[in-house]
């Protein structure tokens, strides 16, 4: 199974907390972190160009500089080479509008950033499932 995960998050502390949560579940995929949507898209296109393997899943925040998570999602879903990669949203936004838009654009999961490590660990099984698919 391809264990590559592209994690798009501009907040280093959130990256740290998320990975600590993963650790609690012994979930240790190959994680590449991009600090916004633009960087993530560049990485993906570069991989396509080099015929390198693409990540098994993408985990992305919504609110980020340069290109936000929803725009990234839109770009991925409109690119034939990328559209099959499952995308999970991990955000602090509980706006109904954001949730609806993400699901409409084809997000596989919409997850709220939790406030405890156990809760972070709790999202691991769902990510695993996504990457297996």
């Amino acid at each position, binding site marked *: 199974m391809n264990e590559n995960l592209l994690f798009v998050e501009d907040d280093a*502390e959130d990256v740290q907390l998320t990975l*600590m949560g993963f650790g609690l579940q012994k979930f240790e995929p190959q994680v590449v972190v991009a600090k916004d949507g633009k960087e993530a898209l560049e990485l993906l296109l570069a991989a396509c160009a080099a015929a390198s393997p693409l990540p098994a899943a993408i985990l992305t925040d919504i609110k980020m500089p340069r290109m936000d998570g929803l725009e990234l999602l839109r770009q991925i879903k409109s690119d034939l080479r990328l559209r099959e990669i499952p995308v999970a949203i991990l955000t602090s936004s509980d706006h109904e509008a954001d949730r609806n838009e993400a699901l409409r654009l084809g997000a596989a999961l919409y997850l709220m950033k939790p406030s405890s490590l156990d809760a972070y660990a709790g999202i691991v099984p769902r990510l695993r499932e996504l990457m297996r698919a």
Partner: protein
Amino acid sequence: MEAPPKRSRAGRIRSWFSSRFSRLPNGPAPQSEVQSTNRRARGWFSSRLSDRSKGGHHRTFRGVPDFFRLAVESLNEYALITMDKDRVISSWSGPAAKMFGYTEAEIIGQNITLLFTPEDIAKGIDKQEFVEALKKGRQDDERWHVCKDGRRLWCYGLSFPLKDDNDEVRGFVKLIRDDTVRKKKDEMLRDSEERLRLAGDSTGLGTWDYDVSKKTMTVSKRAAELFNLGNDPKSVAFDRFLEAIHPEDRPIVGEKINRCLAPDVPYDDDMEFRVAMPAGGVRWVLAKARAFVDDPDRKKGQADRLIGTVFDVTERRRKKLEAEEVKEELETKVKDRTSRLTEVNKELETFAYSASHDLRAPLRKIAAFSDAVIKSAGGKLNTEEQSYLDTIRQAAAKMQSLIDDQLKLARVTRKPLAQDDCDLSKIAREAAEELRKGDPERKVEFVIADGVVTRGDRELLAIALGNLFANAWKFTGKHPTARIEFGETRSGDAPAYFVRDDGAGFDMEFAHKLFGTFQRLHSEEEFPGTGVGLGLVERIIRRHHGRAWAEGGVEKGATFFFTLNTEA
């Protein structure tokens, strides 16, 4: 008394008679016969006079040819009386009989003095009139005459001497017209004019009268003043009146007047216009007009007279304009401030919303990293260290719930208000069910009135009722059993809804603090909470233009009431 040498009025009338008779229609009659008729006509007067002077029998109009008789009798409004030189009545026309009540038989041979009032007789006017008629050839007069039944008639009279072919005075003719009604009307008009003048003088009201055919305006002194027509001119040409009007208003006034005069329109109108002042500036006047039609047939209803009033409204207008200006200024100010306030409120809401939102991330991290510390220490922390970290996590959680409440409040304020049919009974039952599920062990009796319906935002009203129920649930929590009631009552004319509990209650002294956001009447230890629940209720009710209030006592329970759509 000698007649004046020149042709007298009497002579003209006589010659009129003559010419009329000499030009009788129905030509076939030979000229000689016409002449003879003519002679007979003159002869009638002569013979009448001579008959009378001889004390002979009285002849009547019946002896006169039909034409002459018809002519005289057709003068319905005129009594025609002939007298001899001594003013003894020798003929008496039908209208005369009708007017004075004497039949021919009664009056012929009587002196004309019979028709005069005792006052006039005392002054010798009954004789003087005919002396004057002789002197001048005719005498006009207006005076009272007396009827057979004693009634008095105000009459216009015309007397002239009757002469024979030799210019010798044979008697007199007197034409009398009964003007009593007209006199009464005149008097009434004079009275009402006088009253109007008085009213005008005391109120500053001017009156005017526009004679359309003569194109003249008759104006009262005050109207002349107001229209700026010079010093009491009584009457001016209509064009002169138009000139006095401010050029900008002239066409409108002209048009209005024409509209007033036009047939088939209500004849009343009023208009406010400017009169140009010689020293510059204007005077605003209010003119009211009423159109009159003297002869409705003449111009198919086109009025020929316009009567009206005029009033100076300069000051009134100035005050009104000032008031309007002040009002407008105030309205603009209020509008400006309201819009500024709305703007500021919006900014505040946006700030509260984004601040609340932004605060969540660091709080989440405080909680999560405290958790991380505990996890990574792996049981190596002492009890004290463990307790500090727990406190940090609890404080963060508390702050999190405060922020969540703040966000709820902001949402309640920002949400556009819907107008749904709301079954409050159903909403209340759902709220009760939710609470019961959360703590099935508690012994709480819910008494919920059926069929309480209203209109409002269903989602918001559910939040309000949910909070009131949660409030009641919470504050009955220390009692072994509780009763929570929902129902409808009245507040004045409007329905009021209430949620009543038999819980801890509150001190009425602090009732005004109940609905304040984040205000609490109980300690956190006693009853946990952020104090936002009733604040939310208050905001939702206020958005529905209603009022929320509470009654209660310490350990006597509490009742929360609200109305909808009752406040401005």
